[in-house]
């Protein structure tokens, strides 16, 4: 069935302002938005730029706004969008480099700001550190993050104040703070408790748009409790 796809286009070198361009694509059963974009790029208009890699929802390259919601193009079935014209736009609030590819430097800087790495004071043994199944379960729902940017791009607090660390970086902080093996809490606490840290989250839950069904709002809530109990 032929369907119309309205795609956001912008090449700052050539265009005065962004515009939408419509493409017609024949959509068989099982076709994803990434398949549609590839079809357009390979058969109709090679100038269309977007990021993609693994094409099965794990590398996090192809987050974009599809009919107004942030999703991974590669795992979004066209059929799931319920027919009609489909609108595809870049992730909001990140500067557009070209078309659907956005500049994520600020997003990565926020990630780096929370010390997104395992910190251990105690030297390891010659085997693994032990961790119980229950302790390990505590970081389920956080370590799976793919850094796709869908959550931070959808966060009104981040729109309001771009200095806010944002949900992705805070979820990463959660992944280490609640890892029973990590000993970096003292180093991370001032960052989380800072002016642009946890408290800028107003529990709006937009970030639960996460394509991996993670819940940064909940994780931030847990971090807030942790900071309160440690600090005050």
């Amino acid at each position, binding site marked *: 069935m032929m369907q119309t796809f309205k795609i956001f286009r912008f090449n700052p070198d050539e265009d005065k302002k962004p515009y939408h361009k419509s493409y017609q694509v024949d959509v068989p059963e099982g076709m994803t938005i990434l398949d549609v974009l590839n079809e357009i790029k390979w058969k109709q208009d090679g100038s269309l730029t977007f990021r993609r890699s693994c094409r099965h929802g*794990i*590398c996090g*390259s192809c987050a974009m706004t599809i009919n107004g919601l942030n999703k991974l193009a590669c*795992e979004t079935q066209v059929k799931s969008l319920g027919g009609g014209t489909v609108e595809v736009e870049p992730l909001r609030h990140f500067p557009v*480099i070209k078309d659907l590819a956005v500049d994520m430097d600020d997003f*990565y800087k926020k990630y780096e700001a929370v*010390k997104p*790495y395992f910190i251990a004071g105690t030297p390891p043994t010659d085997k693994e550190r032990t961790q119980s*199944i229950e302790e390990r379960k505590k970081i389920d729902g956080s370590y799976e993050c793919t850094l796709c940017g869908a959550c931070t791009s959808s966060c009104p607090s981040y729109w309001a104040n771009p200095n806010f660390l944002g949900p992705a970086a805070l979820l990463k902080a959660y992944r280490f703070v609640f890892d029973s093996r990590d000993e970096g809490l003292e180093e991370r606490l001032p960052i989380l408790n800072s002016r642009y840290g946890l408290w800028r989250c107003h529990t709006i839950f937009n970030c639960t748009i996460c394509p991996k069904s993670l819940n940064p709002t909940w994780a931030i809530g847990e971090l807030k409790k942790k900071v309160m109990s440690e600090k005050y």
Partner: protein
Amino acid sequence: MVHEHDVVIVGGGIAGLYAALESSRSVDTAVLSKVFPTRSHSISAQGGTAAPLGNMEEDDWEWHLYDTVRGADYLGDQDAQEILVREAGEVAFELEHMGCPFSRTEEGKIAQREFGGHYSNFGKGPIRRACYAADRTGHAMLHTLYEQCVKNDVRFYSEFFVLTLLVEKNVCSGVVAWDMQSGGLHIFHAKTVMFGTGGYARAWKVNTNALSNTGDGMSVVLQAGLPLEDMEFVQFHPTGLYPSGVLVTEGARGEGGYLVNNEGKRFMEKYAPAKMELSPRDVVSRSIQREINEGRGIGGKGFVHLDLRHLGRQAIMEKLPQIHELILKFSGIDAVTDFVPILPTSHYAMGGIPTNNDGQVVMDPKSTPVAGFYAAGECACVSLHGANRLGCNSTMDCAVFGRRTGRAMVRHINSGAEKARLPKDALDKAKSKLECVLTAKGKESPAAIRDELQATMMVNCGIFRDEKSLKEQLKVIKSLQEQYKWIEVGYKGQRFNTELLDAIELGNMLDFVETIVVGGLARTESRGAHSRTDFPKRDDANWMKHTLAWKTEAGVRLDYKPVVITRFQPEERKF
């Protein structure tokens, strides 16, 4: 622009980042990658990484070695394989010490599961050797390594695409890369260059690989006049989701999944009565393909069923959550209650850039090293995997040999190595590579050429091959190479020109595929993943040797080098 670094690593997957982590502890290290590092294809590894930790039951590195040697159908170099299995445990623990979120046993140790080709006590029963983080093991390893690289202040150049390797008189001085976002060419001048550029399975229509896995590193090496090793050995993973070929982890069978045909029979009984679904991948893929070819695919179509239903909801959701989600999102099938349609899918390059056991690239049958040039991971051929890789040995290969290569580069630099002088015409080749594509004026469509390449590689150079199909494929490739000269790229701009990227990647694919086909045509035997229907037997008398393939004006030139055998003499493989 010229960038100066001690170490320049191309590729931000597990091999590249492990090396970067090692070298960045003492020397200035930069990583170039055509994608942001955590988008590298290592992220897609699912089921586990192999190490004989013995956390679930007794295990021994010698058993792991035996399995690896036999899995490789005796074409692997046993000295290199021994390094892999002896260092695997230490590396698994080191990853854990860096925070890698492995799943856990009741005692709180790293959890391990069964995988194809891994057995106890020299080939007896299945063994739990695959260390896992649910079914996101590659994700867990790659993010852990990236995190530690951030901690170590490794310099990253993301979305830089390497066009040429600078080598003169067997000495490497750097690479030239294209800045994809803004379009400029950059020279990276280094004391050592390492490639961890990954695999090439995008050259087949049905494959598990990321769209970026176009074998660029391998082709850049060929274009620099250096050889590739054992390219004819291409692994088809038994279980790709039908029809796209997206990976369904071997861990699904490791956890107890069955393969059944249209008669509802577990057909592996016929082909590998002892090890069944947990036989090595070459054996299982061939068996599935035979069932399909002989009309026992489901509804006579090109797939069979993977049955996970008996595992139960809880086990599936705990141990295979990503797979469950993936099958649901891509096929609309709930693996808890329904069969999963699967087919063999192009997956992994056993061959690649020849290296010695320290990751140093070697350039001839005598294994003469290229000074300052290293490689590790899927793009490299040490050779660990010989004619067929065991599941879980690839991520561990990347980790063990990434680490070794990082250390070797540091040793090389600390022994006083200086940067070799850049060639006078350092930029020329890269410039003409871009300009050739940008100025070409013709009617050929790069996408159509790629489609034809992928479709014909499936038919003529897939799981089964023979002289006729390989000769046919060589003709097809020659013709596509000719057509490639007449492509035209519509968008000529500098800014994030992924149309140009696609076209250069296609050019790279058309280079390395020729070595696969020519190497496969010459090798008149069946060994591991190379199944010649016209030569169905392994021929140790004539073919117990590694292929080396160079690209020359006249076509691909072949030579051979011996296989290192230390402990285990070749014997017949039965599973």
